[in-house]
């Protein structure tokens, strides 16, 4: 609110992002909870080893007991003793289209989540706060579904080849031209899987002798792509432009580690919206830095395409910037378009290079035609080219839903991370028992939420992540908010101390340890 701008007026609109600090008591109690569970974990492991208790998890065979142990590390310990206890909140089978409301198959466990049995009953009309359905295109009726059904009748479902061999359909060409026009870039290429788009194309763009500057909280696909490429990777603090500038300066001044030669390429990897934090990248500053230090920018708009910006064109439009400033614009069709797959957009030379040299183009099967048609129809709907204003209405509805939901949750007293305009809303839970309790209590009240714990988040910062949708009506949001309020009182989740913490905008130096000023 009292946000002093030191970045030269690059932002045309206020940038309200907040990550309230964990209250000390809550952190201590969370550690107490984990401590108790760890002790009981050791007890159970002891009992399993000495055959007092039946061992239901994976172990080595008798002949392999003297080999290097496979299941002794912390990840497996966590899996056996902590994850198993709350496992019923994940992998819940749904049996309808994941729209604003979803049907779920009821399941029970008689041996404390080691095995599940289905009762046969279907829980109907659960308010879906977990699906990445930002613009509500996950529908089984409507223009998209009809077009996809027609294309299915014409082309079938399988493509049976890779893009470079016999899998390049005219539908793919049409899709790529449309995506390029939608984003405002010269050319684009679409791939069958969003994760594979990142992990298979970053190795094609950078190699040994290049430098990758990647955000702390980047997605696993970006991390995997960066590691596969063989380039040197340096991490900068999440969304912290001072940290990024320091790394860039060091890279230009010192060059490569031993030989001191200049780096062949410097690539900055950022995401549009970070799905675990709900934060939006500081794109104007990143672009200013990129231009100053002559490096390249790879923007992963998996969650922000379709969800941000007045006409849904993503984080570049949200900040009012030029799409030509971003060298590689990557995104996925999974979240806002109700389909599957990813794309990369940029200059024509870049995309032509990727068509030849990308692993995904050479080895992965190309996109299925009905999925391509779903994307084409939804993109045309968002752009308004199908003759209606449905797309525009959806984008505005999502923005309204986001603002309303976030405001109401903050007023109730929960700790909510992230930017005011991001449709991903993480609500902090912290304690391990509350992760399981929150998921179960919300399901009892007919609301489906996604709860996240270690290893997707730091071990004490577990959260419940709500994904808002344009398909949610105000009544649905009000119902959901009422239930969240009730569960919040029941489980004592309203940790917020309501102190507005201004973001640290003064220069970051070695003496600055805290992100926030107290």
């Amino acid at each position, binding site marked *: 609110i009292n946000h002093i701008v030191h970045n030269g007026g690059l932002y045309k609109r206020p940038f309200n992002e907040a990550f309230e600090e964990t209250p000390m008591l809550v952190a201590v109690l969370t550690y*107490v*909870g*984990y401590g*108790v569970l760890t002790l009981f974990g050791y007890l159970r492991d002891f009992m399993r080893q000495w055959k007092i208790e039946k061992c239901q998890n994976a172990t080595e065979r008798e002949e392999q007991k003297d080999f290097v142990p496979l299941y002794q590390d912390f990840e497996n310990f966590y899996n056996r003793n902590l994850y198993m*206890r709350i496992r019923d909140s994940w992998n819940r089978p749904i049996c309808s289209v994941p729209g604003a409301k979803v049907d779920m198959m009821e399941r029970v466990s008689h041996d404390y989540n080691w095995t599940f049995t289905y009762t046969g009953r279907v829980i109907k009309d659960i308010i879906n706060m977990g699906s990445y359905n930002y613009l509500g295109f996950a529908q089984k009726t409507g223009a998209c579904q009809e077009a996809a059904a027609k294309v299915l009748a014409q082309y079938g479902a399988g493509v049976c080849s890779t893009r470079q061999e016999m899998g390049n359909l005219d539908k793919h060409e049409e899709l790529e031209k449309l995506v390029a026009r939608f984003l405002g870039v010269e050319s684009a290429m679409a791939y069958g899987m969003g994760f594979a788009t990142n992990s298979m194309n970053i190795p094609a763009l950078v190699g040994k002798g290049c430098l990758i500057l990647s955000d702390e909280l980047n997605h696993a696909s970006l991390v995997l792509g960066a590691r596969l490429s063989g380039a040197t990777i340096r991490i900068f603090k999440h969304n912290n432009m001072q940290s990024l500038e320091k790394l860039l300066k060091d890279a230009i001044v010192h060059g490569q580690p031993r030989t001191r030669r200049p780096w062949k390429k410097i690539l900055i990897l950022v995401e549009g919206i970070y799905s675990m934090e709900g934060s939006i990248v500081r794109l104007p500053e990143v672009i200013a830095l990129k231009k100053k230090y002559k490096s390249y920018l790879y923007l992963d708009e998996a969650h922000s395409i379709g969800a941000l910006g007045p006409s849904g064109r993503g984080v570049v439009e949200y900040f009012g910037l030029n799409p030509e400033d971003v060298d590689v614009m990557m995104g996925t069709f999974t979240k806002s378009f109700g389909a599957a797959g990813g794309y990369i957009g940029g200059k024509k030379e870049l995309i032509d290079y990727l068509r030849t040299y990308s692993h995904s183009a050479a080895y992965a099967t190309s996109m299925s035609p009905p999925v391509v048609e779903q994307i084409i129809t939804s993109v045309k709907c968002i752009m308004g080219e199908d003759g209606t204003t449905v797309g525009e209405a959806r984008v505005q509805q999502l923005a309204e839903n986001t603002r309303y939901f976030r405001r109401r949750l903050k007023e109730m007293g929960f700790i909510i991370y992230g930017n005011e305009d991001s449709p991903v809303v993480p609500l902090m839970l912290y304690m391990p*028992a*509350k992760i399981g*309790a929150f998921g179960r209590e919300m399901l009892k009240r007919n609301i489906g939420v996604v709860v996240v714990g270690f290893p997707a988040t730091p071990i004490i910062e577990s959260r419940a992540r709500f994904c808002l949708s344009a398909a949610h009506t105000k009544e649905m949001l009000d119902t959901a908010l009422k239930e969240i309020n009730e569960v919040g009182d*029941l489980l*004592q989740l309203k940790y917020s101390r309501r102190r507005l913490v201004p973001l640290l905008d003064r220069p970051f130096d070695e003496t600055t340890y805290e992100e926030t000023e107290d």
Partner: protein
Amino acid sequence: MEGRSPPSYLYWLFCQFELITCSYLMEPWEKVLFYSFNLALLGLLLYTTYACVAFHAGSAFQLLGSFLGNPRENALSVVK
């Protein structure tokens, strides 16, 4: 919250204890083990309080009482 009766408030407090110490997630025999350990520790704490602190508290009250009762004589004997 105000309309709750004492028994259900105590139950709610117990639920909070269960959530914080993660005994909400434990199987029944683990709960028995955990609660009996906690109760044993609490009992030990209370006994220690009764045995040691009570003795010191008693002697402190005696001293205070002697100050208030007979200021001249006992004050001299205490100062020595």
